[in-house]
């Protein structure tokens, strides 16, 4: 039974804490939700609850990193990437400091709390910062890898983490690599480039379409959003002739933006559709219903694929 991504992250962090005593963890009064409390329980002397003060938390982490520590800061990512942003930009990224950002409750995964708690601009914000690495794991194995990778690799790094359970995709020993995406389903007619939950919804949409209409859909998990796998994007454009991006994020500036930059740079010239939140604020509700209403469930991805296929000559 797969566990919620936040649980997987919290356990991975606590495990890393046992192996490396330079790891310190900070939270802004949400450690029970982000699961950083699992680290706090195991290593109370290296866990700092900063209270509801995100800017303070990120600046403190910046200072800690200059003394050889490897700080992981944690809170709901909608707050981390807004209230924590000035310190992230001016201290952490400008200084290329070794601070890790555990962005909990990405997309609409904090469903019932509504638009104020949904993170739908965080990829755009974080990937626009020089020196920042952006990783969005789509399953438990990827989350464990990303957490370990962050601890072992110098520099500012943002992990986009869900509150929710994701089905397993990868074997534990899958060779994840920064700057690489993974083809998780082969196909010839169109490629869906997705991250996080949308990888799973893309696979579901692909299977439906194959069964019902005989369409062959490739699905790429673009877990490394920055740096991004340019070769794979251009290869998919050349081989399948149409691209759909899919993310639990505004269609502007996120994965769709990153993929488009590569397609334009490479002169790919293939029809592209963007599955994501359509530049609107969301609302409270059950997660599944939100995903459906805002067009990011399997049906939403399917609609995107059908649109792009209609444009493909």
């Amino acid at each position, binding site marked *: 039974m797969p566990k919620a991504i936040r649980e997987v992250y919290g356990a991975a962090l606590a495990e890393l804490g046992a192996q490396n005593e330079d790891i*310190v963890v900070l939270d802004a009064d949400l450690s029970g939700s982000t699961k950083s409390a699992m680290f706090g329980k195991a290593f109370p*002397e*290296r866990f*700092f609850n*900063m*209270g509801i*003060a995100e*800017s*303070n*938390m990120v*600046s*403190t*982490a*910046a*200072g*800690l*990193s*200059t*003394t*050889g*520590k490897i*700080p992981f800061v944690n809170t709901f990512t909608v707050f981390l990437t807004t209230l924590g942003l*000035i*310190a992230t930009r*001016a*201290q952490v990224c*400008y*200084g290329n*400091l070794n601070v890790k950002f555990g962005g909990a409750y990405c997309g609409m995964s904090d469903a019932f709390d509504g638009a104020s708690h949904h993170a739908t601009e965080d990829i755009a914000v974080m990937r626009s910062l020089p020196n920042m690495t952006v990783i969005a794991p789509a399953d438990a194995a990827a989350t464990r890898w990303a957490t370990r990778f962050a601890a072992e690799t110098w520099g500012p790094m943002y992990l986009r983490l869900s509150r929710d359970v994701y089905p397993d995709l990868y074997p534990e020993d899958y060779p994840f690599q920064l700057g690489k995406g993974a083809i998780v389903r082969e196909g010839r007619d169109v490629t869906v480039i997705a991250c996080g939950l949308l990888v799973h919804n893309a696979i579901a949409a692909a299977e439906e379409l194959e069964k019902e209409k005989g369409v062959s859909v490739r699905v790429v998990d673009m877990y490394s959003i920055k740096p991004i796998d340019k070769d794979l994007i251009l290869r998919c454009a050349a081989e399948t002739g149409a691209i759909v991006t899919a993310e639990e994020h505004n269609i502007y500036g996120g994965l769709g933006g990153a993929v488009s930059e590569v397609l334009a740079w490479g002169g790919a010239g293939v029809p592209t559709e963007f599955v994501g939140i359509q530049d609107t604020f969301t609302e409270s509700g059950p997660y599944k219903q939100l995903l459906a209403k805002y067009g990011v469930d399997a049906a939403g991805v399917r609609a995107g694929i059908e649109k792009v296929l209609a444009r493909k000559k």
Partner: protein
Amino acid sequence: MPITAQRTAELKTLCRRFRREALEAVAAIQSGHPGGSLSVCEILTVLYQERMRVDASRPDDPDRDRLVLSKGHAAPMLYCNLIEKGFLPKGSLSTLRRIDSQLQGHACIHTPGVDMSAGPLGIGLAAAQGMAMGLRLNGSAARVYCVLGDGETEEGAVWEAATSAPKFALDNLCAILDYNKVQLDGTTDEVMPLRDMPGKWTAFGWNVLRCDGHDIPALTEALDAAERCKGKPTIIIADTIKGKGVSFMEGKAAWHGKAISPEDLERALQELGGDK
């Protein structure tokens, strides 16, 4: 140990030279912040030249004292001190704010001797707090200093760190407030009344000291008292004069971030006297 009269005289001479050099650099590029550099002169000079344990031959010494210049616009006075300590080459102040220079308008951590980037106000104290936490975890006796502007305390983030540093009992952290009572648009009373400054920090749980921020023996004494205080962080509220040392700049908001004309520079240098 109290500072000797001879050392005090040496530092006074140094401060006069730093004031001249900072003004010349700001005038040369016709951009920068003369007022705040002049008010913080003795604070930074006493810290770097007298009390902080830093050695330019070992810039990465894990047990070195740290300083976060949270009021980053006073960078020229920081650079004067770093040049004097040997972190930066002599003469490099003339490259201030110029293309390809190490000396950014607001100090950046990539510049030798600079412990934290600054510029956006309000976030330096929390970074200093993080350094103090890390040093304590490392078992280091090093101290962390954070120099704040008074206008800067209008930023909420200052009070986030003011709240948390006493929680963590960071007695290796010492903030120094350059309390010159003037900011860009006017006096602090006009722009945003700061009210009972010592009372605010006391209420937040800090050890609060107060001194004349241009009085070298008083500053050293306050820094030593801060080091003796255990169980909580200290703030030294240092009463200063914006533009100190140049009569026509003193207390004038207009000189917060104004370019200096050649004529005004000449008048200022004459007032500051001494060898060029």
